């Protein structure tokens, strides 16, 4: 029997395997940020253990960093302590680090791919659930806990039980104006926030093949929001073209060898998935969330649902709670929901292509009165690229705030937060209660919908602007 992509990558990394025991898996790349690493380094220190492979480890500062006045010390003492601890640990253990102010700093899941460190067939881990992003390259990439971070630092391996596999086949073509974000929000609404539990999701089919790397990263990023351990997309010419020439990409003979190997990283025709979901891309429309988990979404053209619309009593109760928290009345057209804030950024949609898509809509238009729009590039490189194209001027002329790179309002660990009851359209990945600030209300949207919403002040697609 053939193997799936995930099984091929897994099998290529087994260091030790014995019946009844977890496999010991080799880790090719370990990304580290300031929030989940301090206790892991402290554990190493106590046990007198070194980092086994600093050259396969990379640290960056992202969750806590401010997006204005980055030349000044971080004001919040907890944030500052975490960032300073990471710097000390990186220095003590010889781990390369991209600190605030460096040209390579940024969100850990934006930095890996843009450096060319994220490559097909690799195993990649980070103490962060959205490590699934890197699966867009055909890597097996997943989030781990702090004691596992210590384990990887000390041994460059992890004992793991194999994941199950699920194919998500997206046939046909996405209609114009429908993005990867709409697709993944639809998938999550379809299979539920627990539907992917224990699985590696492999996205395949015509619509996936047609996507850019940025769009594939958006999709794999949010696999975790369906409960999955990881998301993957088989590498192809689009993948190779994205990687070629990046600072850490192979070159010369290594490049030829690498591509030859990468081409073998496809699910065999006779491989069997543990579960399969099929989606018709041509039926998709812009999709937004109305509730407090990423599975509570509807088409933008739809209405806020009522608890009675759900058959499962658990879903009804969840809907009741979510509607109360979100301050929404069932039956309200989603397009009438007014927002206070628009956040464009995060490891889901903070890449150059996302900024371009939003700028295209904002060019020559204005952010609605009373709406604040934050544009936070996912990395310094993204920021510089956007400025080289003049996108920063487009945003500023439209009345948006152009910020420095980081996680920012995705989780509000830095000063960028929603006030209680404030409502946002956000291109990030989590609309949990309080995620963007205590009492804050989040609607997850694509960059295009975010930009159009900023202009109209209500949840909108670009098509709504042309009509107006």
């Amino acid at each position, binding site marked *: 029997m053939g193997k799936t992509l995930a099984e091929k990558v897994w099998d290529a990394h087994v*260091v*030790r395997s014995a019946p009844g025991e977890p496999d*010991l898996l*080799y880790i*090719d*790349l370990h990304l580290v940020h300031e929030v989940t690493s*301090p*206790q*892991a380094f*402290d*554990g190493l220190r*106590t*046990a007198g*253990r070194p980092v*086994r492979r*600093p*050259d*396969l*480890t*990379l640290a960056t500062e992202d969750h806590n960093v401010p997006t204005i006045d980055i030349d000044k010390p971080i004001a919040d003492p*907890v944030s500052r*302590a*975490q960032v300073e*601890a990471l710097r000390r640990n990186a220095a003590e253990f010889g781990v*390369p680090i991209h600190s605030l102010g460096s040209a390579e700093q940024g969100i850990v899941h934006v930095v890996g791919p843009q450096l*060319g*460190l994220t*490559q097909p067939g*690799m195993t990649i881990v980070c103490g962060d659930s959205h490590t699934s992003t890197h699966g867009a390259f055909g890597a097996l990439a997943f989030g781990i*806990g*702090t*004691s596992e971070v*210590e*384990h990887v630092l*000390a*041994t*460059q*391996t992890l*004992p793991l039980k194999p994941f199950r596999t699920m194919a998500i086949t997206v046939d046909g073509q996405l209609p114009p104006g429908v993005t990867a974000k709409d697709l993944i929000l639809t998938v999550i609404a379809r299979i539920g926030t627990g539907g992917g539990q224990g699985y590696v999701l492999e996205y395949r089919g015509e619509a996936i093949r047609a996507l850019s790397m940025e769009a594939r990263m958006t999709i794999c990023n949010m696999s975790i929001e369906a409960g999955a351990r990881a998301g993957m997309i088989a590498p192809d010419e689009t993948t190779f073209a994205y990687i070629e020439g990046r600072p*850490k*990409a*192979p070159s010369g003979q*290594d*490049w030829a*060898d*690498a591509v030859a*190997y990468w081409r073998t990283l496809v699910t065999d025709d006779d491989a069997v998935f543990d579960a399969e979901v099929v989606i018709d891309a041509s039926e998709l429309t812009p999709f937004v969330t109305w509730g407090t988990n990423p599975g509570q979404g509807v088409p933008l053209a739809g209405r806020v649902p009522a608890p009675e619309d759900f058959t499962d009593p658990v879903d009804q109760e969840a809907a009741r709670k979510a509607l109360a928290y979100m301050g929404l009345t069932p039956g309200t057209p989603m397009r009438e929901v007014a927002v206070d804030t628009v956040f464009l950024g995060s490891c889901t949609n903070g890449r150059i292509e996302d900024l371009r898509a939003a700028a295209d809509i904002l060019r020559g238009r204005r952010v609605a009165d009373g709406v604040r729009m934050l544009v936070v590039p996912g990395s310094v490189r993204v920021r510089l690229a956007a400025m080289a194209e003049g996108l920063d001027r487009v945003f500023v002329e439209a009345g948006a705030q152009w910020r420095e790179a980081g996680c920012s309002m995705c989780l509000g660990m830095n000063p960028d937060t929603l006030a209680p009851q404030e409502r946002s359209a956000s291109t990030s990945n989590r609309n949990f209660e309080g995620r963007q600030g205590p009492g804050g209300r989040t609607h997850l949207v694509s960059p295009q919908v975010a930009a159009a919403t900023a202009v109209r002040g209500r949840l909108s697609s670009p098509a709504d602007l042309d009509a107006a």
Partner: protein
Amino acid sequence: MEPFTVHTGTAVPLRASNVDTDQIIPAKYLKRISRHGYEDALFAAWRTDPAFVLNDPARAGATVLVAGPDFGTGSSREHAVWALQDYGFRVVISSRFADIFRGNSGKGGLLTALVEQDVVEALWAATEADPTLPVTVDLTARTVAFGATTASFEIDDYVRWRLLEGLDDIGITLQSAGLIAAFESRRPAFAPRTA
């Protein structure tokens, strides 16, 4: 990790069931960046009550916590184990443990001895009558002994082996260092490096 074979110490009777990890260590202590120094955080809310058993000077230096059933429920925070260890506990005895807490304890080197509830009751009575009463926990024999009583306890064979050998997960993996090095020598030349 220090190997655990036999441990003798005095006990603390915690007459409470369903002690969740939020009680063991409240969430506000999770912002810290260290792996150690959580002794002040252990049962922090309860310790504001002068009558709480840990505040009894007679219990100073105790190393064996004797708790009611369902100890360690709630959030999976590993800090709960760290706080118990930092305070000085080497063993927790209870008639029922929450699974995740018990797993975390085994990984961290804290022995969780599962006994019948009547053993817990007898131990509570005995240590309340005499706070200096030594309690001996023998992992090799799987017994708890105090006064004239010896009772057996349950523990997973694999966890027991790890504790006896003093092996944490990393220690176990490092026993395969040769295999890891061999794997590394086979990695392709094109695999990227960060530095």
